[in-house]
């Protein structure tokens, strides 16, 4: 993986990398990606992918209101709150 690939990937993940991190994390990522190449040795022809071990179908519940009762406590967790609005810096 070249540096540009890493920078693009980091941008997608909203991870800011310093020059030092580009070097250290870059090496660590590359080491893992190289290691993943080992998976090429397995014959996967005809196999279906497993996304979850035992789930076969979606489970649905009745479409009904169920109050959580903790909305205020959830809002209290916000780092910056005005009334019941969570504040962020200016978008524009």
């Amino acid at each position: 993986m070249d540096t540009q690939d890493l920078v693009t990937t980091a941008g997608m993940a909203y991870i800011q990398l310093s020059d030092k991190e580009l070097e250290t994390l870059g090496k660590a990522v590359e080491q893992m990606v190289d290691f993943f190449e080992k998976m090429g040795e397995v014959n996967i022809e005809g196999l279906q992918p497993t996304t979850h071990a035992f789930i076969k179908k979606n489970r649905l519940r009745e479409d009904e209101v169920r109050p959580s009762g903790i909305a205020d406590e959830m809002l209290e967790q916000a780092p910056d709150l005005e009334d019941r609005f969570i504040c962020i810096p200016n978008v524009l």
Partner: protein
Amino acid sequence: MAAQTRPWNETLKPEGIKAYKQFVAERDKQVASFLEFDPLRAQGTSNERAAVSTKSKTLEGLPFGVKDNIAVKNFHLTCGSKILESLVSPYNATAIQKLLDAGAVPVGKTNMDEFGMGSSTDNSAYKTTNNPHDLTRVSGGSSGGSAAAVAAGLVPFALGSDTGGSIRQPASFCGVYGLKPTYGAVSRYGLVAYASSLEVVGALAKDITILENVYETIKGLDGRDQTSTDPNDFPLLKKEVKTVGVLADRSGLDGMQAKSLEISIEALKKAGFAIKEVSLPLLDYAVPAYYTIASAEASANLARFNGIRYGNRPIYSENPDDLVRQARDQGFGDEVKLRILLGTFVLRSGFQDQYYLRAQKIRTAIRNQFDRAFEDIDLLLLPVFPIPAFKHGDLGMTAFQQKLADKYTTAANLTGLPGLSLPGPVLESVPVGMQFMAPAMHEHLLFQVARALQSSLPSADPAAYPAVYS
């Protein structure tokens, strides 16, 4: 400390609270297993619920520790990460609520590798947890705080989560029992997600009966977790254990780990079980497939931590994007950043087939291989980790070596099968445990074999932390 055997439930009575707090503060000075400890905080909830509960109270009065990625009302929920330093949970995870209903009391939150990513608990942003058997060594991870708290006798049991071995490995390092239930057997509602298709809530204890009671209490279908399953939907294939499979290829194991396995095999034979060698060549591919899938799921799950709705945010930021970038830069540790980068990379268009899709197909192949193996055996005996509890820092293992060492634990997560690690013999200064895997929803077989081996391979108290409450 003089051994004064008292029942655990005395510790939670008004006259016992002060002594219990002192006892934990004293013992935890050097072990450093708890991030937060307050035996009184949940007691109100417990009594309130007790009045309406009709369940039998097998766990009545037992205090327990909770890994800090499982929600307990009014306790912090840091996941061992700076980014969630300020978060206090406004609700209880399903497993916690069920334990409260059964009369058990959560008394604190235990240390862990940040978001469950690690094998030593040294990746915690808060403190270094030491192995009660040898303080120079790690307690394992990522549920290292839970394992150390149980081993040091601070609580009779603790909850953990297991995504790639995070209950079984620290349990084996600290000489206690550690159960990773079948995927979906225990609701994940209230567990902070890292790799949703792999992880489960489970428990650690020194006493196999307590562990079984905890599992029986927390298991079951939960409408709040789409992936939770009804144990009754699974066929009962085997009522009891007769034949235990062991790996034909046991190369690559440290001398002590090999010795622990040999001792276990002898103990199994003596207890009347038949032993059969099995071959699982695809185990060699469990680690790359596991890390591909776990990183991919982590990159998606950890996208929710952005410093906006909860958690830490930077003092100043130019705009919302800058806020998110700074919050994640300041809030996440190196190992977390590594796995997010890795996961984002393997999910990028152009790379998906090569990594993520291939890993999911290998996951199928590994499941098929285990299904075939369980046609001839009832349980499978495996090592937990190739080496015993290692030293902190540079004297121990590199982050990459730790990942390679997940070979024997990740199979249970990829296949969804249950696994139980047992306390092994104390070799040199630390216990060296082993694990059993069973067919899906056949936890009863794991408890059966654990009871059969209880007398020959007991959970030994650390020399410096003899049992006071039992």
